[in-house]
């Protein structure tokens, strides 16, 4: 029955085949991401509610499972309000930028052996480059709104994201020093064999004192990821007690939804990066029978969900930072620490001939 389809496919020139295959991969990945995002958002709210002894969303669908879809419909069906005096094209471009940049980083994240859209040599640099672009959506949105709260929010956000990007960059450098490659698949494959080989412990790869560097590096990465994605306790760009909602004040309907999806997608991306860089990616914690039966993509997903849970717990438990303390933490503590770690790790790798 499908023979004619197979014939038709084989008759196509290679370029067309490649284009169709890649496009459908990208579409499938996007749909999976958006669907998982809907439930992760619900999880975020449920965790938050549980910490505060509330029930959280529980009305739409069983246990509120369809809440995110209801929210989605509500946002999409509302009216898009563009404030008078706003720079209309830029105002509408900003959420699109956030949304697009949040998606295109996922192109290089390997979720299982061979399951990656683009297995490029400079994967780590690509992730770093695109995540440094994420700030534009916020700056442009804040400026184009032509209103003071959004503008203040976007200024704060720009300064914050630029500051924490520096330490994230140095943490990435320590990891790529250990692996000796910028390819994310190679980074994951270097952590095969068991949880002690994961970069956060790095026992199989380097002599034991290495974890004295890698564990602090992971902690720095985690906290910087919170700041980079404007998550509490570093959500100063949208601090509701000071700036109403920061750069999102003037946004309504679908543009707001795009900002929201972009922001959450970035958070999940940071969770995925922590998994790939420090926690073995798709590898099981033990390389023996009952663990290896479970498919690799499941291990990847479970680790990402765990880190997302940590993000949600931090949001629920930690009070908001003051802005000068945030800057102090980024520039005076994380930057020197990660810089020193790069130097020490470089020497360590050369000394032990591992990289």
């Amino acid at each position: 029955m499908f023979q004619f389809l197979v014939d038709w496919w084989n008759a196509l020139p290679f370029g067309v085949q490649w284009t169709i295959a890649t496009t459908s991969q990208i579409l499938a990945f996007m749909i999976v991401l958006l669907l998982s995002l809907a439930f992760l958002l619900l999880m975020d709210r449920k965790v938050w509610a549980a910490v505060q002894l509330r029930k959280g969303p529980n009305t739409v669908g069983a246990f509120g499972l369809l809440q995110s879809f209801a929210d989605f419909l509500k946002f999409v069906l509302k009216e898009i309000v563009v404030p008078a005096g706003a720079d209309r094209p830029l105002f509408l471009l900003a959420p699109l930028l956030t949304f697009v940049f949040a998606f295109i980083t996922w192109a290089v994240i390997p979720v299982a052996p061979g399951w990656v859209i683009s297995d490029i040599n400079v994967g780590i640099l690509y992730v770093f480059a695109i995540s440094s672009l994420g700030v534009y959506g916020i700056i442009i949105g804040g400026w184009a709104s032509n209103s003071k709260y959004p503008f203040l929010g976007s200024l704060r956000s720009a300064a914050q994201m630029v500051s924490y990007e520096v330490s994230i960059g140095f943490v990435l450098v320590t990891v790529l020093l250990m692996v000796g490659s910028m390819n994310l698949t190679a980074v994951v494959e270097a952590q095969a064999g068991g949880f002690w080989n994961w970069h956060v412990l790095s026992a199989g790869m380097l002599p034991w004192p290495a974890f004295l560097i890698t564990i602090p590096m992971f902690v720095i990465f985690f906290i910087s990821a919170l700041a980079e994605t404007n998550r509490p306790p570093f959500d100063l760009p949208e601090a509701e007690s000071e700036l109403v909602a920061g750069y999102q004040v003037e946004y309504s309907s679908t543009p707001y939804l795009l900002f929201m999806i972009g922001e959450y997608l970035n958070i999940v991306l940071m969770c995925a990066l922590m998994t790939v860089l420090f926690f073995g990616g798709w590898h099981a914690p033990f390389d023996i029978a009952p663990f290896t039966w479970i498919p690799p993509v499941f291990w990847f997903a479970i680790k990402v969900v765990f880190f997302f849970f940590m993000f949600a717990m931090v949001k629920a438990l930690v009070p908001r930072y003051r802005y000068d303390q945030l800057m102090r933490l980024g520039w005076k503590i994380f930057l020197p620490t990660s810089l020193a770690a790069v130097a020490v790790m470089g020497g360590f790798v050369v000394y032990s001939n591992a990289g």
Partner: protein
Amino acid sequence: MLQAAAFYILAATAVLSAFMVVAAHNPVRAVLFLILTFFSAAGLFVLLGAEFLAMILVIVYVGAVAVLFLFVVMMLDIDFATLKARSAGYLPLGGLIALAIAAQLALVGFAWVGADGAAAHLQAPMPDDTHNIAALGALIYDRYVLFFQLAGLILLVAMIGAIVLTLRHREGVKRQDMHRQVNRTRDEGVEVIDVKRGEGIG
């Protein structure tokens, strides 16, 4: 075919947005067009097989330098109309400088094409057995290590100079001293005073 299409799209975007940097009425939009130019240039680097340079261009120029640029331009309180009116006066001088730079670029380009051994380099711009990060690393940290380090030192001096020029210590500013704050004991922090009835502690 796909590559050629990508090249023409990226090149056209780069040229058009570079033109719009000059032609845009609003400085913020001009900076945004500049960013688009950088971005298309990065795309062109990828097409040339220099993916490392492309990523560094995006990280350094688009991700950091242009953000600060945008920051400054957004904070400026300038009257765009008068700025535009005056910019017409700069046109001859600007055009002259642009022409001089274009001429220099052409000179360098033609001289390089005709130079000894350039044809061989054009044939094989990269060794096949190594990818371009390793190739660049070998060049920068091996053959040109002195120049690289000197460039770094010059940047360091510039950075320190900028800090020295702008740093000023203001009197009477209250600063938070985390160390003192955390190590404060009850004896230093609390003073118990017996206040007599009807009098203050004045």
